């Protein structure tokens, strides 16, 4: 994987009246990335993504795509991007095929009926091309939206909350589609979501924003490895176990969940030492459950931001 930047956002800011939607957002997306753009609802994700697509003019900061800026190369940039913002909206009174024809005609590429049919097949709507979109489920619209983003063979795909409102099966389908974009078509994908589980499963790099500011940016794996785990331990006597752990590690913030369970942060190299410590103290350990999910990390950051 190269590290050639395809998107460069620096100190982006946007205000709507008195409301500061984006205060200071910076990140870089490299060619070939599946880039996770994370943040809770209202963090400024959609505003940032809209700035990336020239839907919104930033008040300050720099947005550069493919080394170009919207000020003088808008068409050249947009010809290389496929996107779905929030939810894919189509002309309900037109068929799926006709909708794709309309967007293909202004995509800057030569897309014929054959390519449209192939794309409908790719997203699993091959038999629904002639049907009007008003009869489509949300999941079908989402898949049609992805077909629309890919029609003109763009280098960069930007998907804003692509799984919102989908049922579990729909979420899996879209997730698989995105993975295929990376593996089969070698696209760069920017994926915004407020669900870390989503990003954890498909992104290689990510940025987390909150309250209009960048909190952290980096490789998903690095962010996971650089942090302690949250461990839950089940014993016969949670109170005694807590005393033993605090005596050995006085700075550890141990939370007693109930009479039998404890939870505390710990580096992954120390998990077996704590187990040994408790066993040596005569406290049997029935279960150690390390929560290594990115979800916890995200929630910690968000909650610490809230405190701050």
């Amino acid at each position: 994987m190269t590290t050639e930047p395809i998107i460069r956002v620096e100190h982006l800011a946007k205000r709507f009246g008195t409301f500061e939607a984006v205060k200071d957002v910076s990140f870089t997306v490299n060619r070939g990335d599946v880039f996770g753009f994370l943040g809770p609802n209202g963090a400024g994700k959609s505003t940032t993504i809209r700035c990336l697509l020239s839907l919104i003019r930033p008040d300050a900061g720099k947005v550069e795509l493919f080394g170009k800026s919207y000020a003088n190369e808008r068409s050249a940039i947009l010809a290389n991007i496929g996107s779905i913002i929030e939810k894919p909206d189509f002309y309900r009174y037109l068929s799926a095929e006709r909708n794709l024809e309309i967007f293909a005609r202004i995509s800057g590429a030569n897309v014929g009926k054959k390519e449209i049919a192939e794309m409908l097949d790719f997203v699993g709507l091959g038999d629904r091309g002639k049907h009007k979109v008003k009869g489509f489920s949300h999941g079908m619209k989402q898949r049609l939206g992805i077909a629309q983003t890919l029609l003109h063979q763009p280098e960069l795909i930007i998907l804003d909350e692509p799984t919102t409102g989908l049922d579990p099966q729909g979420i899996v389908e879209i997730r698989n589609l995105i993975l295929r974009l990376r593996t089969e078509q070698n696209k760069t994908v920017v994926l915004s979501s407020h669900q870390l589980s989503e990003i954890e499963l498909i992104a290689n790099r990510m940025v987390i924003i909150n309250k209009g500011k960048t909190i952290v940016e980096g490789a998903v794996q690095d962010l996971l490895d650089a942090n302690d785990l949250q461990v839950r331990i089940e014993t016969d006597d949670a109170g005694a176990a807590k005393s033993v752990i605090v005596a050995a590690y006085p700075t550890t913030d141990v939370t007693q969940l109930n009479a039998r369970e404890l939870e505390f942060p710990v580096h992954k190299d120390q998990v077996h030492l704590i187990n040994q410590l408790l066993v040596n103290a005569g406290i049997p350990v029935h279960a150690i459950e390390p929560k290594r999910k990115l979800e916890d990390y995200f929630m910690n950051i968000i909650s610490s931001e809230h405190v701050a």
Partner: protein
Amino acid sequence: MLLKNTWNEFIKILSKPRSYLGVGALTLLIGIIIFAMKADGKSIISFVTASFEQTLTFNGHILNGYLIAFIILQMLIVHVPLLVALVTGDLIAGEAAMGTIRMLATKPISRTNIVLSKFIAGAAYTLFIIIWMGFLALFVSTALFGTGDVIVLNSDGLVILPEADVLWRFGAGFCVAFLSLLTVSSLSICLSAFAENSIGPIVATMSVIILFTIIGSLDVTVFDSIKPYLFTTHMVSWRSFFEDPVPWSTIRQSVIILVAHNVVLVAIAIVRFNKKDITS
């Protein structure tokens, strides 16, 4: 890209049920007028000629297709703006309401071209409405009532135009009527650029027309200075072609003012749409 998106706009207009609402309403209204004329046209004509007929007799084929076409135009030109605004007011705001404006504005087509293609498509729809109205008014009326001289009632009296001198007046009248309806189209597109749903621009367009028409018809001197610049004042300019002699300077002035309105309104729409943050 402009032509490609204009073609897209044609497809959208042709696929929207509301586009046919106007055509259907127009067909029905003209059908009703023609039926009324067939049933009781003579009494409608005598309403116009009554005060003259005490002294004079009018001979000849008065209730003919050309006269009925003129009456239809006179009656409907007030209502057609609503039918036009119904479609053109939806062109930008409708996309915002539907959410498709996001898709459109993230394609490699300039926002200026988006507005221009919508303006061209709106103009084509307006032209179609005018041609349809002309077809029904002229061809159906003349097929049913035949042709003949046209009696036109102007504010300074009756003008009786010879049959041979009528068709070009209709042609020119339709052109100026198109220009005035195009102004309605441009106004609604302009207002549409400021709105997020299509009801707003449609209602606002009709409100502006009603307001300006009222100002134009009030015989109050304070309004005299602005009246010549209200586009509604010039919406009846097509009628000037049915005066004798044709007041060319008045028509030229109307055409200039209507064209200026179109240019300004489209320019405002382009500037507004270019500056607009698409948050829908």
